[in-house]
C-alpha cells in the first residue's frame, strides 16, 4: 500500500514510458498483413505503418533477414537502455538483473566459438549488446572454468553464480552446456530471491514468471539430456529450485528417461499437463517449445494488467523479443519462399 503510494515518485515516468512502448506491439491485424507480404520490401513497407516507423529506411535494398534482425535488436536495446538510464533504485538493479541472462549467453557463445576456432573479432559482434561487459573480449584466454572465474568473471556480477562450476576440467562442449545451465540456474534462483525481497506486486508478478521459467528449464534440460553423457544426478543438479515443480516434481524428473515419462510427470500439474497435451511433433501441431513460448507470452501479457510493479519491464522485453522472433520467422519464410509454415508465429496480443 505504501509502496503503491510512492511508486510514481521514482518509477512513474519509467512505467508510463514502458506502457507506452508496449502499446506499440504489433496487433493481430498487423500480423495478418505481414504474412501476406510477398517480398521483404513489402514487409518493410508494412512495418513502416506500425510503431517501428522508418527503422529500416536507411538500409539499402535489397533487404536481408539479417539486417532486419539487427535493426530489431538495435531498437529494442535502445529502448531498454533508455529505460535503464532513467531508472532509480531499486528498479535499476532489477533491470541489471535482466541483463545478467544475456551476459551468461554471451559468455557461452564466446567459449563455444573459441572451441570451434573462431576469431574473437567475428564473435563479438554476434553477442547480445544487453549482455556485453568490459572483460567480455578477454574470455578466450581461459582454458578451464577455474581460469575463467579467476581471470574474467571475478569482477562481474556473475561471479557468485559461477562458484559451482569451478573445476579444472577442460572446456569442452558438454562442459560448456553444463556451465550454461548451472549459471542460469543460479541466476534464476538469485533473481527469484531478489524479486521476493522487493515484495509487493513485483514479487507476485515476477515470481510467477520466474517460477514458470525455472520449470521450463527443468523440462527442457531433461528432454534434451536423453542420449547424452549426462547422468541423472548431474542432471538433477542443473534444475533451478524456484519453480512449482520443486521439490517433488524435480525428483520425478530426475528419474525419467524418455519423453513419455516426462509427459507423465507433467500430467500431475494441471498447467503443464495442458501444455504437453497440446503439443506434438507432426506437422500442423505445435512443438512443446512453442507451447511454452505461448504460455510465457500469456504470463508476460498479464503482467501489464497490474500497476505499480517492475514486472512490466521484464515482460515488455520478453514480449518484444518474442515479437522480433515472430518478425524474423515471417521474414525467413518470405525470404526462403517457404510459406507453408508462415503462420507458425506466436501471437502476442489476442
Amino acid at each position, binding site marked *: 500500500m505504501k509502496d503503491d503510494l510512492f511508486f510514481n515518485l521514482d518509477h512513474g515516468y519509467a512505467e508510463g514510458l514502458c506502457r507506452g512502448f508496449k502499446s506499440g506491439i504489433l496487433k493481430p491485424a498487423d500480423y495478418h*498483413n505481414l504474412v*501476406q*507480404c*510477398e517480398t521483404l*520490401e*513489402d514487409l518493410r*513497407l*508494412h512495418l513502416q*505503418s506500425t510503431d517501428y516507423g522508418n527503422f529500416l*529506411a*536507411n*538500409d*539499402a*535494398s535489397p533487404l536481408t533477414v539479417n539486417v532486419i534482425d539487427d535493426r530489431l535488436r538495435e531498437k529494442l536495446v535502445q529502448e531498454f537502455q533508455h529505460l535503464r538510464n532513467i531508472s532509480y533504485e531499486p528498479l535499476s538493479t532489477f533491470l541489471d538483473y535482466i541483463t545478467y541472462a544475456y551476459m551468461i549467453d554471451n559468455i557461452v557463445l564466446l567459449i563455444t566459438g573459441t572451441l570451434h576456432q573462431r576469431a*574473437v*573479432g567475428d564473435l563479438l559482434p554476434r553477442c547480445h549488446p544487453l549482455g556485453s561487459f*568490459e*572483460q*567480455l*573480449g*578477454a*574470455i*578466450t*584466454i581461459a582454458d578451464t572454468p577455474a581460469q575463467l572465474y*579467476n*581471470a*574474467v568473471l*571475478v*569482477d562481474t556480477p556473475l561471479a557468485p553464480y559461477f562458484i559451482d562450476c569451478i573445476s579444472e576440467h577442460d572446456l569442452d562442449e558438454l562442459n560448456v552446456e553444463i556451465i550454461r545451465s548451472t549459471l542460469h540456474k543460479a541466476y534464476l534462483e538469485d533473481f527469484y530471491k531478489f524479486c521476493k525481497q522487493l515484495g509487493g506486486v513485483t514479487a507476485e508478478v515476477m515470481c510467477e514468471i520466474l517460477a514458470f521459467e525455472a520449470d521450463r528449464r527443468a523440462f527442457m534440460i531433461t528432454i534434451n539430456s536423453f542420449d547424452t553423457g549426462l547422468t541423472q544426478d548431474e542432471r538433477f543438479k542443473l534444475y533451478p529450485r524456484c519453480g512449482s515443480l520443486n521439490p517433488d516434481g524435480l525428483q520425478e524428473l530426475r528419474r525419467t528417461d524418455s519423453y513419455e515419462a516426462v509427459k507423465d510427470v507433467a500430467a500431475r500439474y494441471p498447467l503443464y499437463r495442458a501444455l504437453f497435451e497440446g503439443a506434438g511433433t507432426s506437422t500442423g501441431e505445435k512443438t512443446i517449445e512453442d507451447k511454452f513460448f505461448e504460455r510465457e507470452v500469456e504470463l508476460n501479457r498479464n503482467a501489464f494488467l497490474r500497476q505499480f510493479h517492475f514486472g512490466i519491464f521484464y515482460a515488455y522485453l520478453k514480449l518484444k523479443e518474442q515479437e522480433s522472433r515472430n518478425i524474423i520467422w515471417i521474414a525467413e519464410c518470405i525470404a526462403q519462399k517457404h510459406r507453408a509454415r508462415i503462420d507458425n508465429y506466436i501471437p502476442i496480443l489476442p
Partner: protein
Amino acid sequence: MSTSSIFRSEQMTLCQLFLQPDAAYSSIAELGELSIVQFRDLNPNVNSFQRKFVNELRRCEEMERKIRFLESEIKKEEIPIVDTNENPDAPKPRELVDLEAMIDKLDYDLKQINTNSDALRKNFNELTELKFNLAMTQGFFQQVDPNGNGMFNDMTEEITDETQRMTSGGMKLGFVSGVISRERMNSFERMLWRVCRGNVFLKSAEIPQLIEDPTTGEKAHKIVFVVFFQGEQLKTRIQKICEGFRANIYPCPENGNERRELTMGLMTRLEDLNVVINQTEDHRQRILIETSRLIRLWKIKLIKIKSIYFTMNMFNNDIARKCFIAECWIPTSYLEQVQLALRKGSEISGNVQVSTILHQITTNEKPPTYHKLNKFTQGFQNLVDAYGVASYREINPMSFVLITFPFLFAVMFGDAGHGLIVTLFALWMVLKEDYLKDKGKNQEVWRIFFGGRYIILLMGIFSIYTGLIYNDVFSKSMNLFGSSWKVKFDDNILLKDGAVTLEPNPRPYSAAEHYVQMYSGNPYPIGLDPVWQISENKITFTNSAKMKFAIIIGIMQMSFGVFLSLGNHLYFKHYYAIFLEFIPQIIFLLSIFGYLIILIFYKWTTYLAEQATDAPSLLIHLINMMLMSYPTDDSKTPKSIVVFYNHQRIIQTILLIVAVICIPWLLIGKPIYIIVQRKKKTNSTELVHQESEASNDIEMHEQNEPHQEVDMSEVWVEQGIHTIEYFLGCISHTASYLRLWALSLAHAQLSEVLWTMVLRIGLSMGGIGLGGVALFMVFTTWSTLTVFILLLMEGLSAFLHALRLHWVEFQSKFYKGEGYPFVPFSFQSILEEAAAEN
C-alpha cells in the same frame, strides 16, 4: 441561394474523375498545385504494398534514403544547404529516371570516396598511433644495451633493479607495446595482473592529445603501454588480452637505431598520406558543395512525386475502359478551375485527344466542411473549430465571433492603457508579419501568439474603447472633457472631518446657506465621469452599471444565437423546427429575460436623481414575478418593491404563463411530429412496396429505405435532455454572463491595487536624487508586474472566459459542430509538413 458566402461553408460536389493513364500523373500534379481537391480512398481494404504504384513509391523511398545520406554527409561537413525558395514543378515520370540516375551516381561516388578516405584515414590513424607509440616508449627505454642484444640495462628508474635481476638471471625479457583507450586501461591492467599472476611489468603514459581511433574514427583519449614479460606462453596470453580489450598492438624495434629509422620512415609516410587525404577531401568537398545546391530541389520534387503516386494509389483502375477512376470532393465554386487544371494536365502529358472527364455524382454522404478563409479570418475560425468543425453548410459563427469575441474580451479587460500595450504588440506582429513568419517556428508559445495576432489586435483596440467607457487608464481616470461636477462647498464644510457628498439634486445643501448647483446638468460626453475616480462609492456605482451591461449583452447575444438557429432551420428546410423549436425557445427567452432588459432601460430612462430611492429593485421584481407574489401597496413597504406601472401584475403573469407553456411545447412537439411523420411514411412505403413488387424492381426498394430509423424512446430521451438543457441553460447562461462584470471588476481592482501599493510608493518619495532612483526602481517592479500579471495572466483569463461564453453560452443555441474538415490534396501543405518534421 448563393453557393459561396461568409456565413456558411462552401458547397461541395462529389465528383468522379475518369483519367487517362497517360494523363493521370500530370493531371494530379496540377491538382496538387491547385490544392482544392480532396480525394477519397477507393481501395480502403487493399494493403499498402498491394496497391498499383507501390513500385514507384518504393523507388522514391530508395531515392529519399540516398538523399538523406547525401544530406547527412553535407551536414557533417557543415556546408550550408542552399534555399532558393524555388518551387519546382513535379517532374514528369520520365524525368524520374534521370533524377534517379543522377542521385544514384552521386550516392555511389560519395560512398566510393568515403571507403577510400576511410581506408586512408584508418591507415593514417594507425600510423599516428604508432608514431606516438614510438615517441612515448622512447622514454621507457632510455638507454639501450650497447651490445644491442635486445636487453635493456636501464629502462626507467623504478624498474632498474628488477631488470638487473632478470638480466643477471640470463633470461630473455620480451615486451609488447601498443595503444589502448583510456577508459579500458584500468580493467586491462587488473586482468593482466590476474592472468599472468603478477609476472608482468606494465608501463604506460597518456598521449597528451585526442587522437582518432582507427576503427571507429572517433576522437578519444588513448594511452600508450608497454608490457614486459618473460616467456612465449605469457606472450600469447597477453596478446589475447590485448585483443579482448581492443588494444592495438604495434611492433616496436628493440634497437634504438631501428626505432629512430622507423620513426623517420613513419614521418614521411604520414606526410604522404596527409597529401592524399587532403586531395580526397577536396574532391569530396567539391561534390558535396555541388550537391548542396540541388538537394533542396530534389527533395521537393521527390515529395511531390511521392504524394502523386500515393494519391493515385487511391484510384480505381478500370481495366475495361483503360482509365483510372477517382472520387473527390470539390467546392462547387472551384469546378471551373479544376476543369482547367485537368485540361492543362492532359496537355502537358501530350495526350490531348481524350481529355479527363469530370462527372458530378449525387450522394447521401455528408460532404466535408470547407470555409474560404484569409489570414485575418483564419485565427477566428480556429477558435470556432476548436469546439467542433461546423456541420456541412450550417451557419458558421466565425463572422460574428470576429466582433463579439474581442468585444466580450474587452468588456472584461477594460483598461485603455493595457489595451494600448496589447494593440501595439499585436500591431508590431501584424506589420512585421512577413519578417516574423519564419522566425521561432519551434517555439510553441510564440506560434500561438503569432497565429492569433489579428485576434490580439482586435482585442487590444476594443480594450481601448471599453477602457475609455470605464474611464480607466492604468486604473486612473482621464479628465478629457472636464467633469460635469463642481465642488462648491465653502471652507467651513470642507475643513470639517469626514467625507462630503456631492448632491445631484438641485436642492439646498443642508448646511449651506443657499442653493448650490454642483451638477452641470449635462452628462460627461463619453463613458464614466472622472469624478467617480475619487468618490468612495465608485465600486457600488460601477458594479450596478457593469452588472446591467453584462445582462444586456448576454441576453442579446443569446437571443441572436436563437435567431441564427432560425437561419439554419430555414436553410435546411426544417420548417417544423421553426414552430416546434425556434418559437418556444425565443418566446421563453424574451418573455422572461427580454422583459428584464426592457425593465432595465425603463429604470434608466424614467427615474431621475430626485426619485433615486423610489426606483424599483429589479431583482426583487423578477423574483416576485416568478413567485407571483406582489406585496401590498401600503406605507410600510418600501417604494422600490411595489408595482411601478399600470397592469404590471397582469402583464407579468401573462408573460410567466406564456413562458411556462413553452416548456411542454418544446418537450413534446418534436417527438409527436416524428410519430406523425412515420405513420405517413409507413403508409406511403407500403404503397411503394406494392408497386415495386409489381415491377420487380429491387434496387428501387432498397433505395427507399436508406437507413434504419432511430428508436422512438431514444427520440423522447434526446428531446427531454434538449429541453431541460435549454430552459435551465437560459437561466444559468444569463447568470454566466455576469462573469463579464466580475472579471472587469477584478481587473480594475487589481490594477488599482498595483498602482497604490507599488507605484505610489515611488511617486510619493521626496527628493530629486533619492526619489528619482527609488521611482526608477519602483517603476521597474510596477511595469513588470503590469505586463506579467495584468496583461498576460489577466489577459489569458479574460480570453478563456470570452472563449467559454462563445462556445457554451452562444454557440449552444444553434451550432452543432458535427462536420469534418476538408483536407485538400495540396503540395504546399505536404511540403510544410515535411519541413516541420525535420
